[in-house]
């Protein structure tokens, strides 16, 4: 029985206490969930275990002997490995090369021994139900879900005894998540100690044996999973502030005025979605739900002028529009908050001010193109107050903020434009419960102002919580439209995976291995 234990471990960064005298014990054959908002100390804890940072005080014990973990290499020797939210891989290299990176097997002549590597990897691949042919494929040709599985294989190859999962499901589809859970279950049976970090409440009861709640670097408590309810965990995490489910229904006057604001007819984007028709009514939040790869984002990007649709008609407020650049779309009154915050959304090294004003610059410049810097500063401060963006100041680089605050910043950029319709793509992915709640409220305000809002999300809870009506997409087509809620999670999910469908297209999901 392996055990990994932290005793009174703390970590300070400058004057900031990231972790405060934590006692925690991970044991083989158990799944230990770590729960906490962003900034609660979860990532510091992982970094300590994986040797990325050394603790300021305290003791780490592995199998009841004190150890120091001063480098990632040392962590590896102790059998500790982590699988992160976004897999860190070498995309241009094959799966085999990724698996054996840094510990290649060599033959007598010093040449790489591919046959030996294949032989070593095969049983592990079988355990994860991966086909051996995957070894020769490039990492970049695999979906993120499969990349994650490769990293798990790598951890197994290195005799990992403590495997840490850092929000592994936040970018996975339902099927991929289900498979991951099965695998985690099997690893547990085989005696691996597992640390599982997540924001998603419902996952914890599915998978964990015990749960530790962290807030502000302190341990709030460790509970056997059977003895703690979702409500209890939520209140521990948030320190007892409101629940995530309250929402005000759209006011009645708005309900009556629902005229179609954005209307899409027979829209197709080659290779992504086909013959899509839907509409977003003014003053109403429409949830666009579908599994990853269902063509939701591509449809939105085509409306927004970023990619060319291969067919179809787009009408905004009764006018047919054909934007050829996002700038055209914005001018017409159509906005899009992109899915991937880091790569499509924020300007990471740039200040909050530069980020928040990036799409309103024309409003701040005179005929000589000179900017009204004082006005921009005021504007930024107003947005920060209004949208509760917590930062030391407008000059703070947005990359230094928590995911939730970055996302609120990104959201505020769009919420302040005079738009007729706004599509939000995964508006709360990977952010903490508090910020998620806030953003959901802001979205409601936009709809109350009369904007037609579309919320694309693969988080079913979010779609159910925030939408007035729900459109379900499946494999690039519209599967169902649910008007006038409330809707049950079961019916919406059933529609998305096609289990309620006669022609049973759900079988195709087994082939989602190819990345889109």
């Amino acid at each position, binding site marked *: 029985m392996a055990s990994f234990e932290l005793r009174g471990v703390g970590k300070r960064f400058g004057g900031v206490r990231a972790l405060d005298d934590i006692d925690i014990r991970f044991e083989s054959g158990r799944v230990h969930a770590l729960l906490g908002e962003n900034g609660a100390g979860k990532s510091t804890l992982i970094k300590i275990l994986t040797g990325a940072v050394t603790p300021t005080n305290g003791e780490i014990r592995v199998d009841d002997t004190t150890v120091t973990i001063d480098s990632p290499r040392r962590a590896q020797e102790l059998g500790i490995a982590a699988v992160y939210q976004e897999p860190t891989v070498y995309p241009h290299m094959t799966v085999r090369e990724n698996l054996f990176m840094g510990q290649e097997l060599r033959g007598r002549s010093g040449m790489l021994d591919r046959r030996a590597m294949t032989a070593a990897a095969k049983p592990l691949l079988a355990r994860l139900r991966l086909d051996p042919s995957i070894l020769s494929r490039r990492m970049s040709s695999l979906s993120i879900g499969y990349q994650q599985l490769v990293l798990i294989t790598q951890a197994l190859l290195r005799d990992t005894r403590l495997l840490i999962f850092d929000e592994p499901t936040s970018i996975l589809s339902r099927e991929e998540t289900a498979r991951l859970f099965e695998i985690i279950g099997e690893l547990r049976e085989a005696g691996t100690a597992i640390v599982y970090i997540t924001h998603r409440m419902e996952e914890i009861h599915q998978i964990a044996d015990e749960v530790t709640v962290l807030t502000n670097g302190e341990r709030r408590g460790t509970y056997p999973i059977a003895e703690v309810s979702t409500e209890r965990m939520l209140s521990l995490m948030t320190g007892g502030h409101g629940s995530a489910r309250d929402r005000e229904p759209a006011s009645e006057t708005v309900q009556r005025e629902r005229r179609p604001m954005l209307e899409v007819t027979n829209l197709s984007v080659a290779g992504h979605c086909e013959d899509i028709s839907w509409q977003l009514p003014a003053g109403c939040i429409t949830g666009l739900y579908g599994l990853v790869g269902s063509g939701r984002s591509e449809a939105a990007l085509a409306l927004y002028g970023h990619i060319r649709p291969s067919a179809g008609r787009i009408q905004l407020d009764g006018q047919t529009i054909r934007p050829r650049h996002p700038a055209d779309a914005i001018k017409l009154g159509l906005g899009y908050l992109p899915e991937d915050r880091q790569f499509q959304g924020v300007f990471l090294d740039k200040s909050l001010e530069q980020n928040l004003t990036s799409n309103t610059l024309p409003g701040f410049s005179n005929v000589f*193109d000179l900017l009204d810097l004082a006005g921009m500063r005021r504007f930024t401060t107003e947005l920060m107050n209004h949208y509760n963006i917590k930062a030391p100041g407008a000059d703070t680089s947005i990359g230094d903020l928590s995911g939730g605050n970055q996302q609120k910043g990104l959201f505020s950029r769009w919420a302040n434009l005079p738009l007729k319709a706004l599509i939000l793509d995964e508006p709360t992915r990977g952010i903490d419960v508090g910020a998620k709640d806030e953003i959901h409220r802001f979205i409601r305000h936009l709809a109350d102002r009369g904007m037609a809002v579309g919320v694309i999300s693969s988080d079913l809870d979010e779609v159910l919580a925030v939408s007035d009506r729900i459109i379900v997409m499946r494999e690039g087509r519209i599967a169902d439209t649910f008007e006038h809620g409330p809707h049950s999670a079961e019916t919406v999910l059933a529609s998305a995976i096609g289990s309620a469908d006669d022609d049973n297209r759900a079988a195709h999901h087994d082939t989602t291995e190819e990345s889109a």
Partner: protein
Amino acid sequence: MNRIDWTGRAPVLLVISLITLIGVSIGAPGIWSTDNLFAMGVLAVEIGIIALGQTFVINTGGIDLSVGAIFALAQVVMGLAMVGGVPWPLAVMLGLGVGVLCGLVNGLATVWLRVPAIIVTLATMFAFSGLALVITSGIDVSGFPEGFAVLGQGTIGSVPLQIVAIYLPLLVLLAVVQWRTRFGRLVHLTGTNTLAARLTGIRIGRVQIATFVIAGGLAALAGAINASRLTTARPDAGATDNLISIAIVVLGGSSIFGGKGSVVGTALATLVIALVNYGLSFNNLNAIYQSGLIGLILIVAVLMQNIMLSIQQRRAAAT
């Protein structure tokens, strides 16, 4: 908000300038006459102007390998025009127009054909310098009207005209453009994250084209000053400027990936390079050492910055 974005390179540059200053002073105390300083400034102005244009291109995440070729093409076009009887101010305008046009070609090819800037400008570098050779049959052009000499040989008081009347005002203007205008913001946003910029509604193509046009125009301006100073327009001028201008911009703290950098940093780096070059020739050191030394400085500067950065990070991480 308006902090100069030197990103740690400024102190490094100052240290290097200081070392160079001390080295030069010891090796050749006689260098510190105003005449010498002005002579050094005159040499620095031409590459300095080219580097200013290059800064904008690099800050959007692009690169322009053809600035030296534009420098040559523009000067022979004006030279030929003047020899052909065109009044010199008009000929200069024509040359600047050629520079702008060359920049436009670079920009349009990069944006419309979606070919990486490094490939486009590598091709146009050969095309532009080839064109300069063809229209002159490879022969230097000279015999300019007297008035033209003012650009490269004129003085205000005793100070060379191109330093006070061209370079410094240009530097101030471009610094204002960079920090106070919408265009300046767009350059840095585009360079930081091209995809995010496009999805934010920034017409990144126009921004990129504009930076190439600026680089082309400024290279032509430098070409005019060069031809005026030497009273000759050479089709093979500026062959090394293509790369030296990039070295200066990077030395000046701009990130080669875009999004970071300032024209003031570039100006400082120009000064360092000028000091080294002039100091070496003043000490009668063979010119063959010069380019080696520029490379050395570039590496040392980047290394020093990295070391300082890691010290900072360690300090932030410790306790």
